[in-house]
């Protein structure tokens, strides 16, 4: 097992750079931070698949590539299937002795945005998890279809405005709550499932390492703040992510073998969700008097969810 030791952020961020800095992601996009953390937390060879989305269109535009590792993209929905097909091929060729270097350690990883994970690629992800392949799926969750200009996804939280669920005189934005993808993936019986955030980089790296080390299908939802569609200054990506984790809008936790829940980060001072919402343009309309009830509902949902996570952690079932 070739796991990189975690010393300090500066050293870690350049320890094994297989993701080139020259790419087309927006300045301030958290995707590249998350991808780089994954690739730097192991020295093993990587076979990476990407669904169509921001990451894919920004890193593999012919004749260039940002990937100094094996990488494949097929379509919007099927990175999990592409990578698990490759994993099956690795097994077969290892058995038959046709690999060039049969002992080379290799990890299989698929990336998808929330569009391809929660929505259009949900079936392909579910199938790959059920089949028990040895791979890790990482969702870069920026809560909207950012690649196509910011439409709603089933990861978009209630109250956010997007181009297809707009706030206006008769609407406060999206009416529906965010899909609980972490619970759904845990319910597949996956040996390791987590929700992680790049501002808590040590827990993120440890979570990635745990997923890579764990045999079987692992799933990680990562919070990826989207400067363009959440509407904040590109320099504030980590600050916004701090507000997300410290308001418990994005609690950081893991679920082992589908039931053992561990909270990985407990804010010393839990912030009110207004602090998080108020820092982003997509929630600005919620601060009008007529939309106050939506903020109240979001806060109430956060409180209930945090209570549930803590109780599940205590219960150890």
């Amino acid at each position: 097992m070739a796991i990189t030791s975690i010393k300090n952020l500066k050293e870690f961020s350049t320890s094994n750079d297989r993701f080139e800095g020259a790419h087309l992601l927006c300045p301030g996009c958290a995707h590249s931070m998350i991808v780089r953390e994954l690739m730097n937390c192991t020295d093993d060879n990587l076979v990476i698949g990407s669904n169509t989305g921001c990451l894919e269109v920004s890193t593999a535009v012919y004749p260039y590539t940002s990937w100094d590792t094996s990488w494949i993209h097929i379509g919007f929905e099927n990175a999990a299937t592409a990578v698990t097909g490759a994993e099956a091929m690795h097994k077969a060729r290892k058995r038959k002795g046709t690999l060039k270097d049969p002992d080379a350690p290799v990890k299989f990883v698929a990336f998808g945005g929330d569009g391809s994970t929660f929505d259009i690629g949900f079936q392909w992800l579910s199938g790959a998890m059920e089949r028990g392949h040895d791979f890790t799926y990482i969702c870069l969750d920026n809560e909207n279809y950012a690649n196509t200009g910011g439409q709603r996804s089933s990861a978009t939280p209630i109250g956010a405005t997007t181009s297809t669920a707009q706030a206006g005189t008769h609407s406060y934005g999206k009416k529906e709550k965010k899909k609980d993808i972490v619970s759904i993936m845990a319910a597949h019986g996956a040996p390791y499932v987590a929700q992680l955030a790049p501002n808590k980089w040590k827990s993120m790296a440890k979570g990635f390492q745990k997923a890579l080390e764990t045999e079987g299908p692992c799933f990680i939802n990562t919070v990826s703040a989207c400067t363009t569609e959440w509407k904040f200054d590109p320099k504030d990506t980590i600050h916004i992510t701090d507000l997300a984790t410290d308001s418990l809008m994005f609690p950081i936790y893991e679920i082992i073998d589908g039931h053992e829940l561990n909270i990985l980060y407990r804010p010393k001072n839990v912030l009110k969700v207004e602090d998080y919402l108020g820092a982003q343009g997509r929630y600005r309309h919620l601060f009008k008097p007529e939309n106050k009830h939506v903020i109240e509902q979001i806060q109430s949902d956060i409180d209930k969810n945090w209570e549930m996570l803590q109780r599940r952690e205590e219960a150890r079932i």
Partner: protein
Amino acid sequence: MAKEFELNEVEVWDGNYAASQALRQAQIDVVAAYPITPSTPIVEGYGAYVANGYVDGEFVMVESEHAAMSGCVGAAAAGGRVATATSSQGFALMTEVLYQASGMRLPIVLTVVNRALASPLNVRGDHSDMYLGRDSGWIQIDAFNAQEAYDLPLCAFRIGEHLDVRLPVMVHQDGFTTSHKAQNVYPLKDDVAYKFVGDYVPVDEMLDFTRPVTHGAQTEEDWHYEHKAKQHKAIMDSKTVIDEVFEDFKKLTGREYKRVETYMMEDAEVALVLLGSSVETAVLAAKQLREEEGIKVGVVAPRCFRPFPYDLVREALDVPTLKAVCCLDKSSPGGAMGALFNEVSAAAYTTSSRPMITNYIYGLGGRDFAMDEAKRIMKEQKAHADAGHITTNIQQFSGLRGPKLGFYETRRS
């Protein structure tokens, strides 16, 4: 090491089982599949080989046909031999990935058991799915019976994996008529069949970590056009390799395949052009009609649907005696002439005799195409030949209940 499967010199197999045996003998590394009528027995047959030690590779049962082809693409990019099977709606569901597989130049073999496309839902055989694949960039080879359903997948691996080709290949057979009809099949021994197919040679594989590769990049107006043109050239040029592989197969087995099969065309006055299991019906009908009524009928059957063998179809139709040709399409064309009519007309336009060409739509949803109807259509062609012009609508429907349907008329008289 996979066990050898004991085979008799002649076996009684249906088209599905024949195809599954060919897949087994090719020692595929990964089969990712999802069952669908009427190709399910191919997948089930392969599953039985896996369960009993006849296969060393991985058998991945995915959750849909889209995922089946997606898994095949991922596996193929990882540098090994890959195949799967499907039909009809499953084929339609995997269509997105068919284009991706060919654009990524991955030599996957897909055995297609042809079946109608809904709606109305129908499990019987016609060529709707085969026609749906015709612009997908796959080589499409057509088996007319169970023996061919065994022989042609073996050839397909050789063709698609050839370094000058590197394209995916479909091998078609007709649903039920071929897939479920048991016939005598002469198989090769396992070692002989594998030797013919040969070891897989990886190209730009994702499991060679000394040389990282990016598969499935994006190109816009700057490079997309050049990529597609190069891909088109590869499939157009694949005819040379197809001919070579068929020639090698003939040397090994004595069974001869050509990109276009022709029957009694040397002196033909009228001809039928068609695909699939109906070819054997047409050939028998033509023989009988020659004996019974002295009408000189020939049959032309493109073995290769893609790349479409314009060269050999033209050669087959460039017969001085030939006056009238009927192209039979087993797929509802949705507001056009049948695809076979269009391709054959294009090929025939530059012949010196330039025969009259008509189009029949037939056999949709498994409607039987019997000898009497084949003969009736042949005699109708003879009537065109005698009159010197097309005496009916150019497009008609064969074996249809209710009012007769006909479209488009000739201006030649």
